[in-house]
């Protein structure tokens, strides 16, 4: 049995997570000489990582072609497991 992957749930989850890192966390950085650097690091890494993940999931959201499998494995999966 296959599970259907929803599209909305991961988007919401990951946007919330990186939003927390990039937008909410900077407010909680303790004062000190390194505050500016730490805030810059948080925001930059949130933007980079979120964008990278977003590209990965959007590229697979509507595939124009499917994977090509060898007949051995198709046979194996089809008749032995399913």
């Amino acid at each position: 049995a296959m599970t259907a992957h929803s599209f909305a749930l991961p988007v919401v989850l990951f946007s919330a997570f990186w939003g927390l890192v990039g937008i909410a966390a900077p407010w909680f950085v303790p004062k000190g000489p390194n505050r500016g650097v730490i805030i810059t690091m948080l925001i930059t890494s949130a933007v980079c990582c979120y964008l990278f993940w977003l590209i990965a999931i959007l590229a697979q959201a509507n595939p124009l072609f499917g994977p090509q499998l060898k007949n051995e494995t198709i046979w194996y999966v089809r008749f032995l497991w399913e």
Partner: protein
Amino acid sequence: SFVAGVIHPWRVSAFERLLWRACRGYLVANFVEMPEPMEDPATGESITWVIFLISYWGEQIGQKIRKISDCFHCHVYPYPESETSRADTMNGLHSQIQDLSVVLEETEQYLSQVLDKVMLALPTWRVQVQKMKAIYLVLNQCSFDVTEKCLIAEVWCPVRDLTQVQDALRQGSYKSGSSVECFVQRIPTSESPPTLIRTNKFTAGFQSIVDAYGVASYQEVNPAPYAIITFPFIFAIMFGDVGHGLVMFLFALWMVLYENSPSLQQGSNEIWQTFFEGRYLILLMGAFSIYTGFIYNECFSKATVIFPSAWSVAAMANHSSWSSAYLATHPSLTLDPNVTGVFQGPYPFGIDPVSVPWDAGWDLQLVARSLTFLSPWQIWSLATNHLNFLNSFKMKMSVVLGIVHMGFGVLLGVFNHVHFQQRHRLVLEFLPEMVFLLALFGYLVFLIFYKWIKFSSADSRVAPSILIHFINMFLFTSNADNLPLYQGQVVPVQMVLVVLALVSVPILLLGTPLYLHCRRHALKPGHAGPVAVEEQEALLDGQEAGNSVNASKEDVESGGHSPDAKHVDFSEIFMHQAIHTIEYCLGCVSNTASYLRLWALSLAHAQLSEVLWSMVMRNGFVRLSYVGGVVLVPVFAAFAVLTVAILLVMEGLSAFLHALRLHWVEFQNKFYVGAGYKLCPFAFAPDSWE
């Protein structure tokens, strides 16, 4: 009568012969070799002397003998006639020898005592001498004032530390007990000051890779804080693999946790020192590589199945009725996402394991046995056309990230324009640059995202090609076969964007020079003095100028030059701006293409690790008996060594270099000038003045 002495052993035979001839036998000569060699006082050689004793009769013969022995450079000693006096002389000589040896012994002892004491104090002396030498080197750079009674030095000092300097001078004069106090005074200067960027042990590594290209000009925006994250991230795009990233991360973690141990700090090997100084850099590189490795779904070239794969073979097989006979005649078949149930939504985190390569040519039995230990969905990492998908994905990813990175670079230029009070450049340079970049390449990014969202397998036969659309946009033509992505794409939207981009070029080219020209014309009637903001670089007014002690001579390090005549030609400004415009516009195109190295290197890394797995490690799994277990050990050793040598070191250095290149050229030429020089304060660290 006797003559006694010592003679050099080589001259003995000649001496004897001459004596015999000269004295016609009226002498008796006795030659005895000394029992042990002694040092010749004249030459210092150790020679086994020969002692001779000559007895003769007659005064003349005696004289002859003495003359001959003189010629032969013998040492002659008095030889008393009587027996008792000879004995006395012997005793006297013996006691003398004893006394002398006692004296020598005592002297030696004393010498060793003194040397021992010195040995304890020697390191301190050495340091003291070096410190004194350093201080004198600096003092030599000062100059005497008119009264020849005190030294004057001109120094650069950060404004923030000015009070500290005054305190230190006060303490120094108090401690040395002098009557006159040292003092410091600010004087204005038109030289450009050195750049001082304060770093801690974490940020120092990143600052040094920025400085390696060029030290920031005085007070311009520093790209290093952003490079702390973007550099490891871009490295990780080219290096993405969970396993390799984990090894790299652990190696750097070990270096970081033990960074205070002296054995690590004082490594003599230069290459090791380089790695050690970049330990935080490597730590972040490894951490980001783990993240991108998860997204690429590569762990030592194998895919992990965190979530079940989205592709269903059963649905496809049912729809197309793939029977065993059918499969036997078709070596490979494709799953069609158009068929319902085959594709069940995008993989939530990263690339679907079906798209990651699987080894070719496994024995089916082997597959069956090995898969009983793994999740049944691992089988999906076996598409033979995985590169078709990955190439498209990675190419678009590189372009999108590259354009975002470059846009960010242009944005950083705003800080410079605002800080140096050159707001005209915001409108005349930043705006046209941004419009050019976004109208053309920002639009490309939009097209990429739009096609991903709007087009699916249902219209896969007629899906438009973004590349052809992009080319046609510039040429103002269109292809009949290439359908537009959305209504109104070609005529209003793309035309407007191209026109906007074309319009921004002359603004960029002529805006600033014309503005400056008009400004100088407006100022000319009234002012003879310097026009402060003519140059592209910021001039300094007295406030920001270096603070100095009274002086005439300058710090040797200063590479600054007084800004020259205020009459900068319009032609020069125009030339400078023309070069900048051409560089920017052509650079936008070429730099976007340059970011495709992200795709190229990540592909190379993935393929290399796959090859290593399939050609080395897989051979360890061939025999599934106990023998196979023993065979696995050397195979794994070879796999580990090759992984570290080729994939971690070679590929790591390669990705590091390319990430560095992307930062230095493609990112920094959008805003960075980097024409400054570093502040080199005096310090007692040996390497700065030895």
